[in-house]
């Protein structure tokens, strides 16, 4: 059996492991279930109530989200008569798919990444993340519902307003690390300081954009229930709705991974140099995912504190404060690169 290239098999197994088990689909599913549960439990704690309780009572209702997912799976999928059926059915799936595919280009360890170790991983992942909201607009348009349509318009406005700051904050980190590659970016943080200390402005911009893009409070504008029923997903039911509901959490996961790689030092405090299956492959990934989880937990906590902004206020602050902040972060990066190094 000499003709089977052993490295190729290892490479394939590693890829499948990456995409399906960790940090891919299974991890995403588990983390989304945990984060939804945590969000509801934190909010319940603040709001003097119990939160999810009855499904799996012994572990505090942790399986409630799984039960909801099961319920969505067996619910009748209602497609409105006047809906654009193809777009109506495909758009939530594509939205979820593109949110998940971005993970290919986000490595969670120095020797552990999917597909090929590209040099331009930061650019690819950012590009894929930016595609996702376009499908949200298609979702809103396809349902032929005024509330969904208004939700889609709002999504479009916000998408445009917060894309530039997001890109600029990423650019400022690219400037500071002088690389387009997550692994090199983390390595340079391990050698010097984490990105959040090097450029706190970029970190702040990134956090704001994360809150906005994933629809956390106070930017829960596209699905403002007191105005738009459920915004984009007003007409959706069954698994389509479940997928649509899970997508922002997947986006949140991707953003948090990027945030922990670019700003929180990636797999710091581990400095991995050996290619050991446990130490080299999984442990750094675990550190990154735990960091990302903490970031997610902080962001979902905002629900308990803030109500939502109005659309025009959010758009205005996107084009003024947040844009200014991101431009300043780029300037800060250039100054640091010129004078400090």
């Amino acid at each position, binding site marked *: 059996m000499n003709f089977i290239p052993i490295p190729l098999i290892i490479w394939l197994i590693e890829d499948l492991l990456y995409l399906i088990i960790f940090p891919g689909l299974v991890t995403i599913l588990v983390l989304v279930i945990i984060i939804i549960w945590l969000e509801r439990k934190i*909010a319940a704690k*603040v*709001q*003097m*109530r119990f939160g999810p309780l009855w499904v799996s009572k012994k572990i505090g209702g942790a399986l409630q989200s799984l039960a909801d997912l099961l319920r969505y799976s067996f619910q009748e999928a209602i497609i409105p008569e006047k809906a654009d059926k193809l777009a109506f059915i495909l758009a939530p799936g594509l939205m979820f798919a593109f949110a998940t595919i971005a993970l290919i280009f986000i490595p969670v360890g120095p020797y552990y990444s999917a597909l090929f170790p590209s040099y331009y991983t930061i650019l690819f992942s950012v590009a894929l993340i930016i595609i996702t909201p376009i499908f949200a607009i298609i979702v809103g348009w396809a349902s032929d519902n*005024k*509330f969904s349509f*208004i939700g889609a318009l709002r999504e479009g406005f916000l998408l445009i307003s917060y894309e530039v700051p997001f890109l600029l904050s990423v650019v400022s980190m690219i400037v500071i690390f002088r690389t387009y590659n997550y692994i090199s970016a983390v390595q340079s943080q391990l050698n010097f300081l984490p990105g959040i200390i090097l450029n706190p402005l970029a970190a702040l911009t990134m956090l704001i954009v994360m809150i906005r893009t994933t629809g956390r*409070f*106070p930017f*829960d*504008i596209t699905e*403002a*229930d*007191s*105005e738009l*029923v459920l915004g984009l997903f007003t007409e959706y039911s069954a698994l389509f709705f479940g997928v649509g509901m899970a997508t922002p959490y997947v986006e949140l996961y991707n953003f948090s991974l990027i945030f922990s790689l670019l700003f929180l030092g990636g797999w710091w405090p581990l400095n991995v140099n050996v290619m050991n299956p446990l130490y080299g492959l999984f442990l750094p990934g675990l550190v990154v995912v735990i960091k990302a989880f903490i970031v997610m937990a902080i962001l979902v906590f905002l*629900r*308990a*504190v*803030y*109500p*939502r*902004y*109005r*659309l*025009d*206020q959010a758009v205005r602050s996107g084009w003024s404060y947040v844009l200014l902040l991101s431009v300043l972060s780029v300037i800060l990066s250039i100054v640091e690169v010129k004078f400090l190094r």
Partner: protein
Amino acid sequence: MSEKIFNIDDLQNINVEGEKYIILQIGPSHPGSGHMRIKVWLDGDIIVKVDPDIGFVHRTSEWLSERREWIKAIPIVERIMLPDTVHANLAYVLAVEKLLGIEPPPRAQYLRSLVAEINRITSHLYGIGIFGIFLGSSTVYMWAFGDREPFIDLMEMLTGARITTSYIIPGGVRWDIPNGFKERAETVLQYMERRLKDYEDIWVKNPVVQARTINVGVLKKEDAISLGVVGPNLRASGVYYDTRKHQPYAAYPNLDFEVPTMKNGDAYDRLLIRVEEIKQSIRMIRQILKDLPEGKIIADQIYNQLNPVMKKNYEEKKRVMFPAFMIHMRPPPGEATAKVEAGRGEIFFYIKSTGDKYPYRFRWVTPSFRNLPFFTHVAVGHRLADLPTIYGSIDYFPPEADR
């Protein structure tokens, strides 16, 4: 904040037909509408015209009350104003007492004010909670509804029922104050004072809330008067008018309290005024419990109608059982009106008796109905997202308006 770009005169003439405007039917089955339909014409994101369509929960309370004995109208009017039952009860009973010519004893007057003020706090908390969920803050919604509970428990301790108490009857009240009520009330009031600080931290001083509410839904003083707005919404526009001060009833002439007013008349002021009124109510409850006079809780005319068993019951349990007089009550012919400052504003009652077993004419106007002009007048020129802000800030309760 968006400037008003239309005034009420333009609204009458504007042509809302054609394809330029998006017409949104918000309600009657919509999370942000309550039991009503709000038809909104949108020019982009700007509201051009608002048409509130009420009547979905009309329950013919007047018709029902005209076909029942006088005493049986009390549960009916209570069920119309669910967050604010005591005031509906009190207003009706005040009108009937004017017809009957009965004056309740001082202790009953104080107990009426006591339960009315407890009810005012629960009503304002209800309004603050609904405002919270309309702006997207589930925390304030849960807090306000949770903090209603201690006060509702107080009402239960005093009256035997949580919401629909039917506590006030012609001639007095039904129960005397139970043992341990004063201590329990003091605990609850101290708890609420602590909680009001929390509300200030997370809600009143929240930058997002201030950005959403300041200069939104401004109702000027002159407009508020000419549109006939009542209650906290009127006082938020800077008008010093409160039925408790201007036409006092129950124990209010003897109580020392202030009527808070605001200047701007925007949604933020309407939020603040409810917080201030809760503080005043707490102050009044303390005074009432301190100064509560001794004596009977029912007028002598009614007391003399009680049979020996009922009298024994009254002496032992401090509980008024209904004498036969109550169900066979036939007030002398005449008309009577009554006004009461309820949680959302002024209730007005007009009752006409022909000396019959049933009221000849039973007419009442509820505060929410009188606050209806807010939708057509104030929302125009704002953005769609401001509609829930305005709706939440006026504390509108559709079943109360529909009656």
